[in-house]
């Protein structure tokens, strides 16, 4: 399933974006909020994020090795992710990307010496990628609901103890340059503003917040997130 979302549907408001940079509501200095406003406005008319997911109706869950098999490919998802996927009947494998444009603008600004502008583009790019993943997840939830199925939260290689190198297994399901994304040997997606992962589907799966208390990654963006 292929979906695309104009940037304008993905960017949260100025206060929320300043929040991503660390500022409590209303405390960001004016040049920062002004720049967020200017660049968000500029990007609104300038691009589209893309997301794709493929649903596999059957997955094999092995409780002993805590692995998940999709068409013979075994994902070593590790305990935290496994515990959330263990009741899944099927799974959606997905990738989302903000595309090249926003990253290019960021790098160009940095090269020209305007680090603040480069940084704001960078943060906007991350939010666009995450926003696209949120929308894609919502589309999947709605699609699953029509057949009486529920979905789990989304999980990405590199988070919750799942090795980032497993992106190679994930990408083995997608044709080359799928969604305009390529994967390097070191499991880095290009464009950088991209997210990949898996979502469990089934009658008995539950959508639960991330189990951050079981994870020792204090820096994670999903830490403490409500949804």
């Amino acid at each position, binding site marked *: 399933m292929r979906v695309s979302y104009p940037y304008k549907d993905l960017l949260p408001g100025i206060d929320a974006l300043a929040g991503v*940079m*660390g*500022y409590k509501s209303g405390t*960001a*200095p*004016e*040049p*920062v909020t002004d*720049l967020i406003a200017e660049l968000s406005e500029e990007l609104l008319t300038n691009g589209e994020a893309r997301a794709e997911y493929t649903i596999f109706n059957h997955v094999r869950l092995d409780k002993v090795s805590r692995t998940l098999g999709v068409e013979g490919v075994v994902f070593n998802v590790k305990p935290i992710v496994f515990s959330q996927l263990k009741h899944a009947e099927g799974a959606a494998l997905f990738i989302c990307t903000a595309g090249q444009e926003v990253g290019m603008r*960021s*790098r160009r600004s*940095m090269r020209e*010496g*305007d*680090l*603040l502008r*480069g*940084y*704001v583009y*960078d943060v906007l790019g991350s939010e666009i990628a995450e926003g696209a993943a949120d929308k894609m997840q919502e589309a999947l939830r709605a699609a699953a609901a029509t057949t009486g199925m529920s979905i789990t939260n989304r999980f990405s290689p*590199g988070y919750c103890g799942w*090795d*980032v*190198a497993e992106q190679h297994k994930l990408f083995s399901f997608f044709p080359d340059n799928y969604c305009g994304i390529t994967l*390097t*040997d*070191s*499991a*880095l997606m*290009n464009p*950088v503003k991209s997210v990949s992962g898996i979502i469990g589907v089934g009658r008995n799966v539950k959508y639960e917040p991330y189990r951050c208390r079981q994870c020792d990654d204090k*820096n994670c963006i999903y830490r403490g997130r409500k949804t």
Partner: protein
Amino acid sequence: MDLSTGTFYLFLTLVWYPGKQILLLQIVVMTDLLERISTCVEFGKVDIKSPYPPAMKGQEGAFELTRHALDKGVSPGDILEEALIPAMSRVGQKFSRNEIFVPQMLMAAKAMSSSMTHIKPYYLSGETKRRGTFIIGTVRGDLHDIGKNLVSMMIEGAGWEIVDLGVDVSTEKFIEAIEQHPGAVIGLSALLTTTMENMRKSAADLRKKFPDLKILVGGAPVTEEFCRKIGADFYSPDPQGAVEYLKTLS
């Protein structure tokens, strides 16, 4: 800081020490200028046109004040040591304490670099010396650059020359740069656990070739323990830690 304080102090001094007016006037004007430059850099006041911070609107910024200081005979070395470096150090400390965030650090850097446009020629002529050379790059296979750029900028603000090799840097490229800049310190950045493996390889090869080289490492997944394991010299989760470490070397 109240910028009028310096002027007020000048007035009092003249009243109390009438016989030494000229000398004192010179010193006070200098300290006042240096303090003002420092404040401008700390709060990101680039030049007279910058509307931020609002309390300094319409006043001269780091760019103009540095020019005045040099014209009045303040040495570029003093501007660096007494105004710019302390300002960036305060910025780095506030960032480490989460009192300010990346954007304000970058605003300070911009003010600093406007001041540096007047000082750079003295570096080129050799009249002012840097504290050392810092070579930095994101390791092979990794394309992340924001973190590396922040670190470069803060270390430059601490008085070091920066050689930024960019992203996806091979060990050979690091070696080449070290050969071109003997005595330089090196910083490796990696953002993925997979590219940390390349960091390990680069660190090992560099250590073999340059036993005395100081190697700093950083990036979100990097830890103190990993740093020790790969035989690097120092790990810091943020730029200020690196700046403090470099102070102990120069």
